[in-house]
């Protein structure tokens, strides 16, 4: 599974403070820590409270790239902020995210084509998150078709079937699993899939256990990438183990360390 480290996000107090003070220490520390623990991409999100999201995004991209060569996943609902960030990225980045709404797809896919960026595409539209797998897959197909019109290959898309917290929307779990499997049938090459992992455990008491259980179940259903806490060692070990069971890595006694260290 491709690990997108979630920690550089203005929703966390230390990052919000860092942006406010223009002090890169906390941001760079998290960039290093996540890379060290096996992240493949670093998610960059200025957070909900930033008054100047464009400036904040540019600053976060710059200070992160000072300490890490990992590709970035620019996470914002404000597309001008993402575009400002894309201009500064040294390696092809990921745009996070676009729903299946025409105006937003046109804006994001045009930008992705211009910068060679991958795109996290959400299986939702103006009506919100669907309840069942079939509606999610229909939206995924719409995203793939629209991206294609902009010359973006399906495997540049990471479709997020959107999972809701399991304590309030338990019936979504199996629908998400089915969505993950069937998304792969939409096109050839198939789009990739991604999940914002922490959503599934919002408001529960066993967050880490639920996150890693969900992660390995989703992997068994074909999940390609996760926006996750790369510094959750138990989660990373569970993902490494799932890769062994799924025959994605060759077993050896040190397989957990091999999985975490392969980027170094």
């Amino acid at each position, binding site marked *: 599974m491709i690990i997108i480290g979630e920690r550089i996000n203005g929703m966390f107090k230390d990052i919000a403070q860092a942006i406010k003070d223009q002090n890169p220490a906390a941001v760079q520390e998290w960039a290093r820590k996540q890379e060290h623990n096996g992240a493949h991409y670093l998610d960059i999100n200025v957070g909900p409270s930033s008054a100047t999201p464009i400036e904040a995004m540019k600053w976060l991209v710059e200070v992160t790239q000072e300490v890490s060569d990992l590709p970035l996943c620019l996470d914002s609902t404000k597309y001008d902020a993402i575009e400002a960030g894309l201009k500064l990225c040294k390696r092809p980045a990921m745009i996070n995210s676009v729903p299946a709404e025409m105006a937003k797809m046109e804006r994001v896919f045009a930008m992705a084509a211009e910068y060679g960026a991958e795109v996290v595409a959400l299986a939702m539209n103006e009506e919100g998150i669907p309840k069942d797998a079939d509606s999610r897959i229909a939206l995924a197909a719409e995203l793939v078709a629209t991206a294609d019109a902009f010359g973006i290959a399906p495997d540049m898309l990471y479709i997020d079937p959107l999972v809701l917290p399991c304590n309030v929307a338990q019936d979504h779990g199996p629908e998400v699993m089915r969505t993950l499997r069937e998304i792969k049938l939409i096109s050839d090459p198939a789009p990739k899939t991604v999940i914002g992992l922490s959503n599934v455990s919002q408001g529960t008491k066993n967050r880490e256990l639920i996150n890693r259980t969900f992660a390995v179940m989703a992997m068994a259903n074909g999940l390609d990438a996760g926006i996750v806490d790369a510094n959750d060692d138990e989660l990373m070990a569970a993902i490494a183990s799932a890769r062994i069971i799924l025959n994605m890595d060759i*077993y*050896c006694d*040190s397989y957990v360390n091999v999985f975490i260290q*392969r980027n170094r």
Partner: protein
Amino acid sequence: MAVEILKEKYRNKVGEVVLGATSDQGGTRSHTITVGGEEALPFLHFEGEIPNRPVLVLEVWDIVPTEWNPCFEKHYGDVWSDPAAWARKCVEEFGAEMIQIRLKSADPDLGDSSPEDCAAIVKKVLGAVGVPLIIVGCGKPEKDNLIYNPIAEAAAGENLLLGVAELENYKAVTSACMANQHNIIAQSPIDINICKQLNILIAEMSTAMANRIIVDPTIAALGYGIEYSYSIMERARNGALQGDKMLAMPMIGNVGLEAWRAKEANSPTEDEPGWGEQEERGLLWETTTAMAYLQSGIDILVMRHPEALKVIKSSIDDLMKDNS
């Protein structure tokens, strides 16, 4: 409409290892040999670069190899009581690109020669030939662990390939190689998990050693489990190309040693008249075994029969022709 050839794109390539060192590099070899570096499966030049030819080695023992088939006497009998002369003949007459010295005399049951004697033999062969050398012990770890360091020190600067390291016994040879900057053979018993784990353990002792490992996955001869070792090597190479850095090492195999253990190579003509003449049969057994391993991604073939080496050399010439 032209048919478009479907090409596989790989994420990683096999690491390159340089063997030997010239006088500029602190050694006394006439040239160095680079192995590995493959960007695609064997000889699929159209999918990626195959920058280095597989290397053909002849084995030299430091005792008269009385256990070898008598047919070898006419090739090596005049020199096999002197490893230096034997090595020279292999290089000058038979075209060996490297020499593997097997220090059989160190075996407590076959002479029990001292670590200093072993080092002296290595020095003597270094003086006799200009090609890079592979040095392996007698195969008994408790004795081999005593000879690695003296050899590594005596040949410091020569950038040897020294072995073998095994899962249960890798520290002595690894530290001898680390201290004197030699390369190491990491041997696993036809087991990809152990192969990978051993590479990790060596790399943990020294990250620099990770780039100096040659994997010996242990090969079997035709008819004696060749398909097992073949599939292990194929899996290792696929893993390497798909990004598994702990399997992305060049591979070595003792083709001659294994092929000449087979009954089919050794049975006298009179015992098996229907099988054809013994020596020809034996060298074909070795050649066929080697051909199969070339297709599995082997980088260094340790051969025994000079005619088998010749046939494989011309096959490699053909296989290295660009087919892109």
